[in-house]
């Protein structure tokens, strides 16, 4: 009955807004239940709100044009027609992008980035219920748990920095989750616990194994990447699960968060049988508030879904060094996601300016330059929103054919590795090596180590040496572990001298655990999460410090504060450490035997305490004893 009654005003409202959105050229309009209610209360106000919204959208549209022009100026080599319809922009915006970087090792690095921007406020009193491009599941997570920033990544394989260079988005092997909560959260630990369980459900991952024993609160390494200068690390939680296996079941929910799903746009390439047949696979979700304009008057929420994959085509490609989209993903592209405001493919051709290294087909005349990872890179750009990109066959299958196998990669300036030294199951030593390949500049790095409690670190054995000399860290934050409660956290600021290796060593002792605390395969060992090395590395070119200017997505993730340096995060290998194990087959035996020994002690003392010494009299024979019993019954004195 109620539905019938509210029917009329709803239709009125839908008509009203529809007429407005026809001008805006919007694709769909849905009305959420909460708005039903508000319309019911006051249809007049609702109509006004809708009008206001349309007006604001117009304003945003104005600014976006400017941004686009700047972007065009950057890529001004070619006259880009950029025929965009003068559509008034809705408050949300979706962009997709694929960057392909041929690596010198012969591998191919493909990095997908999908960005949804939404100018809304989850935190205000009014509940957000109208979702268009932004996934509702994540929006509800943000508002329910008062999340300020959320970064989650699932990675299979280890990124080989020395062979592949720096990735656009670094991630450690396994699962990594770090969250900044709003300062309105009172019980951060409880919220964190609940959040990890919810995310575990959303991503079909074992994030519910995140508890206090693998969660730390880094004091300096993980600053918020979005706006907001909160630095109180009480609201930060960081956890890694180095053992997490990433598989199709994690990819499917990740793809479902995309506005087009895997039906259209770049996401059609994400076929799991190909993606997981690779040397490295990493998928991530980053949610953060960002500035919408230069003065940061309006903020919006950014959801960035990234997927990085390295294909080992050189070794598995039948000896031929050539690859194509079809070879990599067993799909070709036919269209951009219709909801995307921009959909582009970038191919890194910096090392191939004259086409002597490889040949790219179909050729494109569109070029773009971007500052990324302290270097100016040149890219060939394929704009999927343009029909002529797809040519006459209506499908785009990029092909790179290598001509020569030579080529030097610029060594990454910062690189790190880690290993466990020592033998036996009693003690050991963790060695972390940090390489500064810069020929003349030294720079500081922040090293973060989170070591589980069952490796008991001895901080007094910590040594930091570079070039054979003691290199005293200028800042050390150490939180010792509590057994079965929290891990060790070691953070330190170390200055890396130019062209040097800095070695950090710390000794540990392996604990013997309770038999129920071991994993089902105890002799496989226990994983220790990667060290995180965060640094501002000196840049060879001036970096772009304007965060709001329109840039390719892959170059705009880490905010850049100064022109002379850029932010890099390097993850080391996770460690696999063996612990001494009890014999799992004999708890009963151990309980029985130990109790026996205690009983021997108790029994012998009890004996001596309660009995007294007496002279042993020879015991009478059996017949005599029986006779005595009978005599006793008869009341006659015994024999």
């Amino acid at each position: 009955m109620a539905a019938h009654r509210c029917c009329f005003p709803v239709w009125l409202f839908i008509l009203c807004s529809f007429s407005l959105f026809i001008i805006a050229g919007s694709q769909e309009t849905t009305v959420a239940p909460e708005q039903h209610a508000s319309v019911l209360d006051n249809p007049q106000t609702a109509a006004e709100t809708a009008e206001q919204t349309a007006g604001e959208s117009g304003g945003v549209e104005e600014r976006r044009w400017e941004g686009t022009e700047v972007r065009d100026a950057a890529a001004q080599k070619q006259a880009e027609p950029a025929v965009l319809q003068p559509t008034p922009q809705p408050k949300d915006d979706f962009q997709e992008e694929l960057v392909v970087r041929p690596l010198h090792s012969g591998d191919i690095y493909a990095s997908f980035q999908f960005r949804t921007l939404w100018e809304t406020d989850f935190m205000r009193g009014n509940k957000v219920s109208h979702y268009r491009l932004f996934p509702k599941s994540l929006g509800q997570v943000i508002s329910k748990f008062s999340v300020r920033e959320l970064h989650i990544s699932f990675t299979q394989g280890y990124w080989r920095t020395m062979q592949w260079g720096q990735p656009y988005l670094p991630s450690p092997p396994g699962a990594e989750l770090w969250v900044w909560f709003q300062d309105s959260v009172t019980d951060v630990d409880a919220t964190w616990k609940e959040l990890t369980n919810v995310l575990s459900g959303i991503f079909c991952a074992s994030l519910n194994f995140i508890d206090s024993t693998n969660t730390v609160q880094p004091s300096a390494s993980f600053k918020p990447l979005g706006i907001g200068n909160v630095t109180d690390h009480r609201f930060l939680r960081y956890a890694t699960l180095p053992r997490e296996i990433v598989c199709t079941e994690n990819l499917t929910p990740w793809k479902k968060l995309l506005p087009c799903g895997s039906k259209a746009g770049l996401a059609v390439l994400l076929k799991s049988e190909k993606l997981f047949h690779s040397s490295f696979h990493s998928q991530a979700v980053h949610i953060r508030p960002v500035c919408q304009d230069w003065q940061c008057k309006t903020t919006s929420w950014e959801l960035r879904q990234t997927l990085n994959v390295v294909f080992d085509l050189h070794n598995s490609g039948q000896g031929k060094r050539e690859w194509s989209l079809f070879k990599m993903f067993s799909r070709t592209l036919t269209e951009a996601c219709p909801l995307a405001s921009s959909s582009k493919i970038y191919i890194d051709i910096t090392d191939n300016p004259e086409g002597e290294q490889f040949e790219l087909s179909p050729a494109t005349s569109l070029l773009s330059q971007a500052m990324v990872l302290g270097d100016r890179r040149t890219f060939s750009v394929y704009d999927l929103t343009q029909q002529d990109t797809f040519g006459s066959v209506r499908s785009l299958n990029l092909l790179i054919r290598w001509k020569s196998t030579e080529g030097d990669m610029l060594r990454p300036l910062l690189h790190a590795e880690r290993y466990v030294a020592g033998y036996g199951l009693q003690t050991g030593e963790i060695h972390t090596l940090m390489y500064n390949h810069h020929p003349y500049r030294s720079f500081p790095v922040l090293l973060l180590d989170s070591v589980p409690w069952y490796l008991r670190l001895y901080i007094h054995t910590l040594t930091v040496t570079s070039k054979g000399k003691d290199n005293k860290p200028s800042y050390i934050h150490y939180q010792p572990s509590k057994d079965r409660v929290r891990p060790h956290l070691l953070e330190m600021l170390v200055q890396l001298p130019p062209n040097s290796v800095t070695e950090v060593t710390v000794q540990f002792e392996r604990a013997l655990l309770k038999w129920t605390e071991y994993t089902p395969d105890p002799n496989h060992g226990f994983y220790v999460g990667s060290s995180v090395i965060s640094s501002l590395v000196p840049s060879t070119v001036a970096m772009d410090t304007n965060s709001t200017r329109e840039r390719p997505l892959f170059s705009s993730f880490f905010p850049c504060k100064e022109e002379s340096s850029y932010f890099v995060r390097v993850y080391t290998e996770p460690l696999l450490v063996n612990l001494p194990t009890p014999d799992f087959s004999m708890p009963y035996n151990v309980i029985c035997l130990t109790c026996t020994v205690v009983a021997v002690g108790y029994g012998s003392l009890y004996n001596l305490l309660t009995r007294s010494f007496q002279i042993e009299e020879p015991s009478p024979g059996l017949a005599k004893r029986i006779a005595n019993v009978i005599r006793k019954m008869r009341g006659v004195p015994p024999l």
Partner: protein
Amino acid sequence: MELLKIAFCRNLFKFLCFCRGLHSGVVVSTFALQLENPWFTSRLSRDLSAWSLHVLPVHAWVFSRVLRLPPTVQKYAEMAAPLTLLLVLAVTIRAALFRSSLAELIAERVEVVSPITAWKRVVEGLALLDLGVSPYSGDVFHETPLIIYLFHFVVDYAEITFMLADVITAVALYMAVKDYNKQVFRKQKFALEADRYPLDCLELIRSPKEMYYIPLKVAMFYLLNPFTILSCVAKSTCGLNNAVVALFIFSTIKGNTLLSAIFLCLATYQSIYPLTLCAPAMLYLMQRQYIPVNFRRASFWWFIAQYLFMYLGSLFVLICLSFFLLGSWDYMPSVYGFILSVPDLTPNIGLFWYFFAEMFEHFRLFFLCVFQINVFFYTIPLSVKLKEHPVFLIFMQLAVISIFKSYPTVGDIALYMAFLPVWSHLYRFLRNTFLVSCVLLACSTLFPVLWHLWIYAGSANSNFYYAITLLFNVAQILLVSDYFYAFLRREHHLTYGLYLKRKDGSEATLVLK
């Protein structure tokens, strides 16, 4: 701050009230020196109190001349010559081992150091303190705040400190046993004069000749025991605990109630278990002051109240002192909670580690309670049975503690083994000396072997090492119960005669019934 010299007065109650208002420092290790040399006292205490002024933020007690010393120094020098030789030898052995590469190896041995006493962890605690982190915020450091405080100043002289601790223990035991033997001899003389012993018991009567070397043997058993040497070279803080316990025994045997209570309180504060030594101390002191152990006597209860008051008062002072040193109560769960709840299952020579590693989760608390109560439980029946022989009771208690405590090390065993020469007159009644000594020796050598096979070679598993700990503990239990049996049997013979006869006149055998 002036140093106060207070003559020892019988009325300890008054003394306590008086001392409460005084501001002075307490230094445990000086007592041994005081015992050795009365003239030293004033100068040393002055220095120490000046030192304590600078370093101790809180006030504590000082006891300048509490002990009465034997009359002639001449006599002392005569008897102390072999002891001095022994001390020099012991210190030389230790110093040589400290300089050798073995020291590091020994410091890692799980038999020698436990999570509570490991020197590595003391250093870690100091390092944490330097980093501005509370040592008790983590689960590596489990020493008491006073130990941090001590080593904050003497960390560079740790080797000397540990050697000194061993020397103090040996000297204290030496003098304690000497005094005890004198009393035993005096009692025996009275009993002989009163014709209390049966005639055929003359064989059991102890002669001064055989008793003469016992104190020296005790010191030797302690100082030259490989267990003690290992413990000292590993810089296990067990050596310090032993020193405190030895001083407690010494002051008890000397009949000094206040010092006895204070050292007992220090020992309890270091590791809870010496709490059970309260009973023998009270029994001994009452015996010495001719207070009958009778529940209906007011003097009995008055003495108990006095002793407990001193004991609990000094415990209170120590605990508050520790609180003020670090400004938090964190050390309580980290030290005592750790000892009682046994969260660290690092292998050691005790019974706890493997048992609780293999325990079913829902029975853990139950067995934890059973095992911990087991340590304390023997106090009551043993005190009832041995109320006439408190020193033997101390020995029994020390042995029970070192067998059944949660993190035992070989240093604990060394302490009660030092008493074995005191009971040398029981040898004729011991039943399985050979077996026990063989098992103890074999186990001691097998510990490192099986540890190596399990941890380094990977060819054995934890059961091997566990089996050896079981055997080692069985041997200790046999040893202790054997001594207990022998002691009771000798007492029986002293009352009923050595050669007992049956009713029919044939030679009788004694049995426990």
